[in-house]
């Protein structure tokens, strides 16, 4: 089975990456021919090559190595998340300090957390369960770091990624078999903090209520959402043709990053967007089958499931934003959006996932 599933998995990944390359190239085109449009695709290809190398390397890392590296990787991530908050080291864009920038390339440490957080939490959960740790100990060793990382991302500020990291933690604990009572108890403990957040940052609440209003009065919707819906609508069933879209010419904001999916819709039509949806569902289903076949290794299954689910979930979340199903949130489309770290991390996650799913000598534990 594995022999036929893995090429399919890689093939779907390649298709999504290919769509990404085409659309980043197309969406970066501006009305004034010049360097930037070439610069975007060039950087994207550099990142893609880098991602392929790192992903390939990651696929060779054994579960055991991941277990050993997990604390260090997590610690490294936390250090970077702290450093990025320091003015001068982190670069502020649109009021948020999320990026390191060097030599024309930028690095977003919160993206790294998507890779390292599940590794770390799974490692700890495994230990905790082995020793039969108390709820209090679980809180200190797992929920503490989870909350810490989320908070660091939150103060950048990056509410979307922080929420995604929280969800990531929840998926690890849930799929890792953390007892249901403890999950409920943790949820009760966390709820005052989450509610307090809404009161502390009223504009977030306004964004949500404003968004709900916009459902009934589309002209009140935020500019980028209106443009996004317009862009998708212009595409229609079969699209305007690759490269023939108009909306990306600075009508649609962030056409090559968070809203690249709208450009897919304009240029490739409903056929194109549903194909991308199918590719993601296919990737997920095939990934789940791979996990299924990897019966013995709890760690590999838990981490692999979390990585895959969160990656596919982020893709779904991105489309939900683009189609105005949920309030606007800065969420990139994995594998397709232009964006160095996101691409790097997504490909690395998929590479590492393949590595985790590879049966190893002596590792197969009969059920």
């Amino acid at each position, binding site marked *: 089975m594995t022999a036929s599933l893995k090429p399919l998995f890689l093939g779907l990944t390649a298709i999504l990456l290919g769509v990404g390359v085409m659309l980043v190239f197309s969406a970066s085109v*501006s*009305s*004034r021919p010049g360097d930037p449009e070439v610069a975007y695709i060039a950087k994207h290809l550099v990142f893609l090559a880098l991602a392929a190398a790192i992903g390939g390397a990651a696929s060779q890392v*054994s*579960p*055991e190595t991941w*277990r050993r590296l997990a604390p260090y990787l997590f610690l490294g991530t936390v250090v970077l998340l702290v450093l990025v908050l320091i003015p001068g080291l982190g670069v502020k864009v649109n009021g948020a300090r999320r990026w390191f920038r060097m030599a024309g390339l930028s690095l977003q440490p919160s993206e790294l957390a998507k890779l390292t957080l599940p590794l770390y939490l799974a490692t700890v959960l*495994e230990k905790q*369960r*082995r020793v*039969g740790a108390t709820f209090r100990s679980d809180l200190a060793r797992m929920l503490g770091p989870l909350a810490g990382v989320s908070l660091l991302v939150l103060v950048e500020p990056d509410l979307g990624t922080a929420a995604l990291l929280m969800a990531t933690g929840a*998926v690890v604990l*849930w*799929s*890792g*078999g953390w007892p249901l009572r403890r999950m409920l108890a943790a949820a009760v403990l966390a709820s005052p903090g989450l509610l307090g957040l809404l009161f502390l940052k009223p504009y977030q609440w306004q964004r949500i209520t404003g968004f709900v209003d916009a459902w009934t009065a589309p002209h009140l919707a935020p500019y980028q959402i209106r443009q996004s*819906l*317009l*862009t*998708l*609508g*212009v595409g*229609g*069933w079969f699209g305007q043709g690759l490269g023939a879209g*108009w*909306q990306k*010419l*600075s*009508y649609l904001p962030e056409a090559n990053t968070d809203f690249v999916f709208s450009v897919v*819709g304009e240029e490739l*039509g*409903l056929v194109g*967007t*549903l194909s991308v*949806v199918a590719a*993601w*569902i296919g990737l*997920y289903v095939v990934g*789940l089958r791979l996990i299924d076949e990897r*019966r*013995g*290794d*709890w*760690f590999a*299954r838990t981490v692999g*499931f979390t990585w895959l*689910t969160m990656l*596919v*979930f982020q893709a*779904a979340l991105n*489309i*939900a934003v683009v*189609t105005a*199903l949920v309030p606007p949130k800065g969420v990139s489309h994995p594998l397709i959006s232009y964006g160095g770290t996101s691409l790097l991390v997504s490909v690395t996650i998929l590479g590492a996932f393949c590595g985790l799913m590879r049966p*190893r*000598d*002596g*590792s197969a*534990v009969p*059920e």
Partner: protein
Amino acid sequence: MTAPVDVPASSREPGPSATRLRTNVVACLLIAVWAVIALRLIAVQGFSRVLSERSARRQRTFVETLPARPGDIRDRARRLLATSIRTHSLALDPSEIDEPRRVAESLAGVLGLDADALAERIVAAHGKRFLWVRRQLTPDEAESVAALQLPPAAWHFRVEHRRVYPQGTVASHVLGRRDIDGVGRGGAEEAFERWLVGRDGRRTLVRDARGFVIDVDGSQTVEPVHGRDVRLTIDSVLQADVERRMDELMDDCRPLAACAVVLDPRTGEVLAMASRPQLPIAPEAEGSSAKDEDLGWRNHALSSMFEPGSTFKPFIVAAALDQGLIARDESFHCGFGAYRMGRRVLHDHHAYGLLSVADVLVKSSNIGMAKIGERLTNDGLYEAATAFGFGRRTGIELPGESPGRLHPLERWTSYSTGSIPMGQELAATPLQVAAAHAALANGGVLLSPHVLLQVDGPEPAYPAVVSRPVASEETARWLVQGPLVDVVRRGTGQKAKLAGYSVFGKTGTAQKQDPETGGYSHSRHIGSFVCGAPATSPRAVVLVAVDEPTRGSSTFGGIVAAPAAADILRATLESLQAPPSAGLP
């Protein structure tokens, strides 16, 4: 590859089926989310498509006007009188301006405007899409504005044609003016609007969100139809001479207003037409009073009317001769200066006894004219006045023409029989008087005066000239070559003598109505003089009218108007290269 050592822990994992249940729940939820997304995509891309396409198209296209260039106006020798140059006019889109202060400051610096006022205007226009900053910039200004590199969506140039008059104020009353919006106001600019003004075209441009034009939708382009060139009958060199002479006259006599008309009697073409005071747009008119400005806008030659006085007398004589009511060799006794008509006593300036028909005109005897009027009766007088074009517009193309005033016959009284023959009780424009004299000079055929020579283009247009016999050729020739030549030679018009030419002419001095008494004023006159040459084959008829001269020895037409008219006539003959009459000194 080593097998994980601590795997035995898996024995304490929840059963595989439990884990599987948990992951399946998550997986199913996520697949369900994807299903919702797929449905949403079908909705967004399948149903609202037409609407989206239309609004997307609307937000990226922009219809630009391609302004038609107004045609040029040239004189009869194709000298340029009015032309248009392309200029850029600067407009802002206030809704696209985030920093009004900064934009205002940079524009104010380049255009020499008040930055505060401009910033205020931009803020006040918030939410609007269009605001003129300044129209019709000079090329330098336009270049400097472009160099500012303001956000492209925030401003644009609109091409507009600025009307320029290369000869300055020459013929300004004939030309009128074309305003900043390209609409003709007065004169030929207004009269020939339908030829001069073309039809604007338009072009659909495709822009990106930042306002850069990225494409032209050629299928939507409508090319502009440019205006056609118009040629006038005016001779601008002669016109300039006439205007110079009128300026001198204004200095010498200080009248309220004055005007001059030069006609070619053989064609009805207006060779020159000048009116004073000058149009108020002329720089020297600055600081003048509101009343002056009002007078300045009028083309007195065709919009002001006055009682023609003695200049009207030859038409009555012509009618009486043609109807056989008087004979050329007949004499009239002029009562030694006083003549009773019913309850009214008429007076002459000098006491005359027996005067021939010719001398009635030469001496301008009111009593002699009244006696001729009695022969014609009111019916005949009315017929004569209407025949020579009084009481209705001459038909010149220029706007603002007055029809003059000729009361309907029913309102005439026995007074009229004495008044009309001496040019009272009716009012005429200077152009009407000039045209009527031109009819005599043209062998009795009245031609409608006109300023249009030709509309250029593939299908040229020409003026419609109405021609109508109003006196017999014989009578007309006798009047012009006889009494009217004598007026200049030995009568009231001796100041109009020109060396080398046989000049004919007629003076006129009309009393203006006194606004207080309603009767004739003894101090306020309109002096006029109409003359032409050569008498045997007239090439030009000149009329000069002077409204309320205030300086000089006399207000008589023969004194105030004749010298100017003579100068203008000489200039006209020279410009026409009319041969001097043989045998004259």
